């Protein structure tokens, strides 16, 4: 059984293998804290989570080997763009092929389309190209922090990343075949499949209005490079503002539907109770009286400069981090050092667009001993984070205001 100590050593070894960017001695301490998991995740992870580098990746926190689920440690979130080799990995199914870009194609059609066609990677690259900087966050990010715990992949803070995606508009691809007026959803499949043929394939759909949004892309570049294998090479769906479940990797089919897409991954999976969360975007053709598909991300923030319990010097300390939402844009981030009684505005950093991570920072005067730091983000439609967990059975949409303690000497 792995102890905290061996986890720490594994983390150190992983850094040494993983490259030079984190080779500074002081980063080892920060990284060990990151590898020591987000506070509050199930204690069973102590025995199983390790820092491990997948091919082409820097070490990530391994939650499961098969299918591969790896999250990024806190210190990978010090920049608003997440480098490709530090981007989290999430799969539902374990039969993941190495897709050959030369023979790769996407089938486009369905009963809601006027025709059908096949699109190669070259075809895609010949279409007008668009770029968007957008956060890809797993629906279940922070599930591991749910209280009480709920079953699933027990993500801490790191099942998210932000990249500059480049590709063709999904709308332009759909225009090749033409949508019938009665089309209500567009469904997507990826190249990966289940280990056992009775397991439901991972198929997702979007309402037509979101599919034809100008920001919804079939992306073949991520931060100026081809997509990493583990992030969907050679092309994936990019659905800015919406949670990662819709961002189909290794995209092989786009199917226009006149009836709602069925299957386990649309219902009962990836659903939230009706009326419980302050979300604007609805997926009406999939709604029922009790539940509705998860859609846009809720406004959220993360302190990335310090882990909970970090040691600092008494005096001026600058705390920084990231904020994001479902695409309305971050308006304000506030920090509190008195447990939420009073708040002051943080300084916002570079604006890479309304779908991107927004950096923020604020300075505080740390007294000797424990200093509480809380953060709350606001978006441009007036939404804020929640102070109390909105419990739901799948552990989605956890945007509880973070509260950490800095220990000043």
């Amino acid at each position, binding site marked *: 059984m792995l102890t905290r100590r061996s986890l720490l050593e594994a983390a150190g070894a992983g850094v040494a293998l993983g490259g030079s960017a984190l080779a500074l001695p002081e980063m080892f301490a920060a990284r060990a804290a990151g590898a020591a998991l987000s506070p509050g995740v*199930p204690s069973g992870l102590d025995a199983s989570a390790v820092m491990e580098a997948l091919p082409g990746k820097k070490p990530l926190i391994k939650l499961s*080997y098969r299918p591969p689920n790896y999250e990024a440690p806190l210190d990978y979130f010090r920049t608003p763009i997440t480098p490709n080799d530090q981007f989290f990995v999430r799969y539902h199914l374990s039969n993941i092929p190495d897709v050959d870009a030369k023979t790769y194609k996407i089938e486009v059609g369905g009963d809601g389309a006027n025709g059908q066609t096949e699109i190669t990677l070259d075809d895609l690259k010949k279409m007008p190209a668009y770029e968007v900087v957008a956060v890809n966050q797993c629906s279940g990010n922070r599930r591991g922090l749910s209280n009480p715990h709920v079953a699933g992949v027990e993500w801490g803070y790191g099942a998210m990343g932000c990249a500059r995606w480049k590709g063709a508009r999904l709308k332009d691809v759909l225009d090749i075949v033409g949508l019938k007026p009665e089309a209500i959803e567009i469904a997507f499949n990826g190249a990966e499949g289940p280990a056992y043929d*009775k397991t439901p394939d991972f198929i997702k759909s979007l309402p037509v209005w979101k599919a034809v949004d100008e920001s919804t892309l079939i992306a073949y570049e991520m931060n100026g490079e081809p997509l990493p294998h583990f992030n969907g090479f050679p092309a994936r769906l990019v659905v800015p503002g919406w949670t990662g479940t819709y961002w189909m990797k290794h995209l092989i089919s786009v199917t226009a539907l006149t009836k709602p897409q069925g299957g386990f991954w649309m219902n009962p999976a990836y659903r939230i109770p009706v009326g419980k969360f302050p979300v604007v975007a609805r997926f009406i053709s999939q709604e029922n009286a009790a539940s509705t598909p998860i859609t846009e991300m809720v406004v959220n923030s993360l302190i990335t400069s310090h882990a909970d319990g970090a040691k600092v010097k008494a005096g001026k300390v600058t705390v920084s981090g990231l904020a994001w939402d479902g695409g309305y844009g971050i308006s304000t981030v506030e920090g509190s050092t008195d447990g939420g009684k009073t708040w002051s505005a943080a300084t916002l950093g570079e604006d890479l667009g309304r779908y991107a991570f927004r950096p923020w920072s604020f300075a505080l005067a740390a007294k000797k001993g424990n200093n509480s730091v809380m953060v709350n983000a606001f978006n441009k439609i007036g939404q804020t984070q929640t102070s109390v967990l909105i419990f739901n059975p799948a552990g989605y949409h956890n945007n509880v205001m973070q509260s950490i303690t800095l220990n000043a000497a």
Partner: protein
Amino acid sequence: MRIFAFAAFIALVALPAAADEPVIQLKPGPGLDKVQGNCGACHSLDYIQMNSPFLNAAGWNAEVTKMIKAMGAPIGDDDAKAIADYLAKNYGT
């Protein structure tokens, strides 16, 4: 030779873990072999460690039922009970 090759092919297909996947050491106990043979055929066994210890016996039973009903796992009633009992005893609350 042909029979041997066929047997080797079956062994390869039935191999529960990916070739480069470290062996997950679960707690010893009655039913562990059923867990390794059934659960491990489709996913790595670190899923069990990760989801512990917060499920009670009913919670683990619901997970096993989900794997059979929703995920199509071909697990018979006797094995399902042995698996649920093992999980509740070793990874439950």
